[in-house]
């Protein structure tokens, strides 16, 4: 029965047409714009649309797939026929994405992902919900059937919910997150890049600025400095509140109905208000966990647990808007520390958080942080002092000295706080590193899954007798290393490096 050919949902051509139209939108727009003075431009514009429409109908008709004994067979193409054989052992995840229109029509877009990362192996655009569920079940059964001899009697345990977010938690998530600010920043950048948008934005904002300026002038002239200051403070507060409100709204769009469930060795995360996304990842494919606690998180007694998965498109397909990312990136967008630790325990059974033996970094860490910051701050201060002297001291020098002293104190406090919290811990195969002052991060890696190790030292590090221990994992971010522990004593770093090296050797 499983050998039979399956087609896409009859409505598929609508969605294929949608994505095809997005590709020809530019030439079509140009045509509409330039061809407007021609008499029958509508007819001319309809031609390519009709052509593309017919093409997508054909493409949807010719796409079909079969679930074989050991592989998934996908056939597609109208003129250039392509056959893709995807062995079940290579399939690492099946994710689903449903925009609002999908949900109204009761269909879903299914992506089959392999370990290679990058583009998905196959995209089924679109399947009906029962067909998608059937495909997922078939793939799961086949995958389980293959290594069954190894894992013994896996009686396909019913999926259990590990973590869910009620509305109150999503509200907290929105209050903590900075997404509103990022969104405004991105929108501002877009407006500034486009000439007409910038012009209109200027027209909108200029009267406001002028009104504020006039208000300020009258207040200053009448000597009401306090009213002015209070007004400015209120305005700032209002702006912050608005940004937080936007963040909360975005959080509801992205994380509404978030559930993380476990199905055997697979984790499934589902989230989204309008666009619903379902991502899956297998437990052994998880590479690195990051427990993040910003200052605001700690005020609410919450944290965030992020994860990177081997072969994921991490950091490439980030959506800033309201729709959730496709990609398994968070085990818990927000959770209490206890919940996060329980989730970590699911991924790494050997990790017992309460029995961790945290070891502080090298005592020279304070100096390292202090010198590291002073290298930028001191020249900047000197430049300020020089500029001040050049313009005949508009800021009197005692004030400058006071500012420098305050800055030095703040830096000393920051460096000491950083060194106090910074620590590493090892239990069995697991290595943990925590750091941070305002935002505290705990990074968890499994020694046997590391890719390579590096010891790095700058001249300052060597003069203090310390080194960095760095490690790389699969599927992490391209922008920063999976693990970078600064301020380890040379001896401690060598011991740690040697033990991790042994774990990598013995892992296979």
């Amino acid at each position, binding site marked *: 029965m499983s050998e039979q050919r399956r087609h896409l949902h009859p409505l598929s051509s609508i969605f294929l047409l949608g994505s095809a139209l997005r590709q020809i939108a530019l030439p079509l727009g140009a045509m509409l714009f330039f061809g407007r003075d021609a008499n029958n431009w509508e007819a001319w514009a309809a031609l390519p649309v009709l052509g593309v429409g017919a093409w997508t109908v054909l493409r949807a008709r010719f796409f079909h797939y079969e679930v074989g004994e050991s592989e998934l067979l996908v056939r597609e193409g109208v003129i250039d026929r392509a056959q893709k054989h995807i062995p079940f052992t290579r399939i690492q995840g099946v994710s689903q994405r449903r925009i609002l229109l999908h949900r109204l029509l009761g269909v879903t877009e299914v992506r089959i992902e392999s370990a290679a990362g990058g583009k998905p192996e196959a995209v089924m655009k679109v399947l009906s919900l029962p067909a998608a569920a059937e495909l997922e079940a078939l793939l799961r059964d086949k995958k389980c059937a293959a290594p069954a001899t190894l894992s013994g009697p896996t009686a396909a345990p019913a999926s259990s919910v590990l973590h869910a977010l009620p509305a109150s938690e999503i509200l907290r998530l929105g209050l903590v997150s900075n997404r509103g600010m990022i969104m405004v920043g991105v929108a501002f950048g877009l407006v500034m890049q486009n000439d007409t948008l910038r012009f209109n934005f200027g027209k909108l904002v200029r009267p406001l600025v002028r009104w504020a300026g006039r208000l300020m002038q009258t207040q200053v002239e009448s000597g009401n400095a306090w009213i002015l200051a209070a007004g400015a403070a209120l305005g700032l507060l209002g702006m912050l509140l608005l940004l937080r409100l936007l963040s909360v709204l975005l959080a509801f769009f992205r994380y509404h109905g978030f559930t993380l469930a476990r199905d055997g060795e697979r984790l499934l995360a589902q989230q989204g208000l309008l666009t619903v996304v379902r991502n899956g990842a297998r437990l052994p494919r998880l590479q690195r966990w990051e427990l993040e606690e910003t200052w605001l998180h700690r005020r609410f007694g919450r944290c965030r647990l992020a994860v990177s998965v081997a072969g994921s498109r991490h950091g490439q397909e980030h959506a800033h808007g309201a729709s959730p990312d496709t990609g398994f990136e968070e085990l818990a967008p927000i959770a209490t520390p206890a919940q996060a630790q329980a989730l970590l325990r699911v991924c790494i059974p050997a990790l017992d958080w309460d029995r961790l033996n945290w070891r502080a970094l090298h005592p020279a860490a304070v100096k390292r942080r202090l010198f590291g910051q002073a290298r930028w701050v001191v020249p900047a201060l000197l430049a300020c002092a020089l500029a001040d002297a050049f313009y005949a001291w508009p800021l009197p020098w005692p004030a400058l000295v006071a500012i420098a002293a305050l800055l030095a104190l703040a830096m000393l406090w920051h460096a000491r706080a950083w060194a106090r919290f910074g620590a590493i811990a090892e239990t069995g195969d697991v290595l943990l590193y925590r750091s941070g002052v305002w935002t505290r991060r705990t990074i968890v890696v499994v020694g046997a899954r590391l890719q390579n190790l*590096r010891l790095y030292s700058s001249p300052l590090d*060597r003069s203090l007798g310390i080194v960095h221990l*760095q490690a790389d994992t699969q599927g992490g971010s*391209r922008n920063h290393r999976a693990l970078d522990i600064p301020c380890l004593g040379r001896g401690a770093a060598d011991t740690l490096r040697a033990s991790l090296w042994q774990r*990598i050797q013995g892992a296979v």
Partner: protein
Amino acid sequence: MSSLPAPTATSLPKLPALLTVWRYVYASTGTISGMVAGAVLAWMCAKLGAASMILYAFALLPTLALGAFGFLYAGKKYSNYQAELHADQGVVLYDGVWWRTEAWVPIARLQHIDVSQGPLDRRWGMATLTLQTAGTHDHATRIAGLPVARAHALRAALLPQTRARHE
């Protein structure tokens, strides 16, 4: 480096031609940036109305100094540069003058290995061995200055182990 290599470690050879290449590269980079700096200085002196002899000295000084510095830097980099093969375990590369790294690449994680030669390399029979792992940030480790035959031999020696471990 203070860490003692394991007893099974063997140092990989580096050709003196690598020093020559680095001397060319660093000395010419230094000279060119020195020339730019000298030109700027000379222009500033001319603006301030300095004598012409001083002007030439100003233009020459940074050129010579930075060129010589590049030459010496290449020598220091070459003497610090060392690759080690730890039998059945992996390859270690020591590199850097001020910012020093010690990269440990396990054989068990090697995805593929490339041997590459630039035009200057071919002239001196030198090759670069690139070790690729599946990581995302430091996935490629390049070992420069190997004799061509040794690079190919290393590639052949490391590959069967890679395959055996992946299957």
